[in-house]
């Protein structure tokens, strides 16, 4: 057995300790990734995983080792999805695992990534991002990402009729993707690689109730936020002038319209308490999702 000189031994210990602190993100670690929605001010910093400005104060608890997955908030899903895939490669490969939270068009982002790229070969990365939001490679690869489950706050995976009504002359690229036909044909919403989507559907909408069918949170209707496989006017039990009731869990609507596979409704806003907006303080429908993350994402 070779015996190390004292100086070398000391250096090795120092190196090991330094490496431990420098690569604190590099071991088997759980992360919570927050994927935001439409953001016409383009105020978030893509690739900067500490920028929670879309959501609220960054000091607020929102799941273990939370990371903000920012993108420009106005571009086509297909153009911007690389930001999400970069984040998934960074934090959800190798021995690291992720809980995902998505808001609004963030639902389209994670859905698109899983459906079209969830079975592809990914480089295992070291959870240490550079300025461009990409992390270093380790030399290993794996199929898909390590995701436990996805919480969706007022998901726009099914689009919004507000986008259908939109004025083309002033619409941004994302608005096109948010039209109900576009959103629903963009990818196979049932292909989640077996990962469950927990849908949180808000109903505190008033101003656009003539445009958005059934219950809505002022931007997106229940058919989308509830993960229903077809458009329609879905409401809370007892509401009038609706096509059907949005049921909790995986149960189809009362008029038998099924949900997408692996989508379950975790919150039906029967009290009409939650609107669409985080309002810079983790508010609206984002609130219950944040609490869910705090409770379960550890």
């Amino acid at each position: 057995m070779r015996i190390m000189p004292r100086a070398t031994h000391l250096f090795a210990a120092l190196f090991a300790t330094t490496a431990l602190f420098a690569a604190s993100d590099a071991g088997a670690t759980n992360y919570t990734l927050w994927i935001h929605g439409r953001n016409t001010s383009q105020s978030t910093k893509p690739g900067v995983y500490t920028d929670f400005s879309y959501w609220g104060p960054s000091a607020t608890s929102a799941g273990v080792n939370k990371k903000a997955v920012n993108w420009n908030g106005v571009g086509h899903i297909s153009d911007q999805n690389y930001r999400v895939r970069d984040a998934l490669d960074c934090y959800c490969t190798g021995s690291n695992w992720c809980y995902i939270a998505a808001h609004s068009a963030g639902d389209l982002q994670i859905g698109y990534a899983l459906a079209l790229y969830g079975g592809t070969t990914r480089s295992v990365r070291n959870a240490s991002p550079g300025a461009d939001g990409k992390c270093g490679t380790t030399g290993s690869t794996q199929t898909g990402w390590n995701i436990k489950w996805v919480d969706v706050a007022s998901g726009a995976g099914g689009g919004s009729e507000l986008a259908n009504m939109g004025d083309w002359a002033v619409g941004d690229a994302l608005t096109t993707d948010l039209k109900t036909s576009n959103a629903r044909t963009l990818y196979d919403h049932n292909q989640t690689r077996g990962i469950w989507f927990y849908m949180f559907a808000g109903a505190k909408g008033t101003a656009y109730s003539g445009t958005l069918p059934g219950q809505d949170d002022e931007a997106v209707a229940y058919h989308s936020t509830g993960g229903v496989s077809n458009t329609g006017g879905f409401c809370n039990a007892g509401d009038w002038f609706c096509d059907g009731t949005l049921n909790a869990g995986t149960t189809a609507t009362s008029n038998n319209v099924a949900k997408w596979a692996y989508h379950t409704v975790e919150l039906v806003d029967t009290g009409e308490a939650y609107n669409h907006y985080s309002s810079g303080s983790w508010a609206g429908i984002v609130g219950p999702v944040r609490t869910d993350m705090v409770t379960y994402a550890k």
Partner: protein
Amino acid sequence: MGAALGALLLFALRGRLCSAGRVPSEDALLSDTPTRPKPTPASPPPRRSTNPGKGFPAAALDPAEESGLTPREIAERRLERARRTLDGYLQATRYPPVSRPLSERPDLQNARSVPTATQPLARADGKLTDAKVTLSQDRFFLVGDEAARLTVSCTTSEGPATCEVRRAEARVPPTMPQAGTIPPAPIRFYDDGRDGDPEAGDGAPTALFAPAREGFGGYHGPIGVELLLHVDGEDGTARFEVVYTPAAPARFTGVVREALEEGSLCMYVQMAIDKPGRYVLHARADDADGKGFAFLEFNEELGAGSQEAKMCLFGKLVRDEHVRSPFTLRDVEGFLLKEDAYPDRELVPALVGNVHTTKSYADSQFSDAEWQSEEKKRHVDEFTKDVAEAEKDLEELEGGGSK
């Protein structure tokens, strides 16, 4: 009684009382949202969940304080979530992601599925209309010489109404760079039972829109068909959208060979590939009685030239669905996926209808084994660990005598 009737009237007229406006950004909605009461019949109390009600502060609280649950209740719920995650994943992965029960795809039972879109007639002054417009189209993506059948139907609060198409025009959206170079094209809608219209005089006009014939032949991207409509005395607009591929990157030759491999029936769909890349394909399979039972996917890189896309009826899926062969592969469609681009795909012309009928097989020739893979093992190992940790946490709490 008067108050109740008044509330009912207010509710019935709620659409008319609200201003639709143009498409708002979420930012604009934050500043523009009017505070208008929404009269509805009384709603039941909020559903009990781990989440408290509105107005929740954004302070950094621990889970017990946030949720109002005791530590033991939180531990129980975490265990429940962990078990649900593991059990759900095991259930989902009895079959591979690319060979699924067709019942899991309620919206993709057939090729070219597009949901209808129903919305208010869009008035130029932005005010909400009594008229609603339903847009139906037989495809969203089209390629080459294909045509999309576009049908518009209308209703008012009194029931079905005649849609009068006063003008219709196809144009490239302003967000596309070609918007200024490709002129708009007039499109004719018919309600005479001809030219693609399924029923004469039903008040629901139809158009067959073939981009290649209307001046969009070299263009790749979205095309909007904007209608100026007159419905029961009101004028407004509605818009269809399609995404067009001028030249297909590949085509299905129609040749399919089959092979029983490790207890699954695999079908090799032959393609002539002009542009190599990642192809995403979907297909359906029917049983001997013509009942659909499987949804198949292919998502792999293919090189140029003659290639085969392998899609398998997984053995356990066949066994669990209790279906008899011969099976029929039908409605095969797909596209070349273009990463980090818009448009993100070039469409391959679909094979709609029956494409291939297999030989007959005995049930025993299909394996009953569940799908296994490194991806599945990785997930099952992690989710099993999570359950064990959650059980241990709960045991420690119970052992500590927590309330």
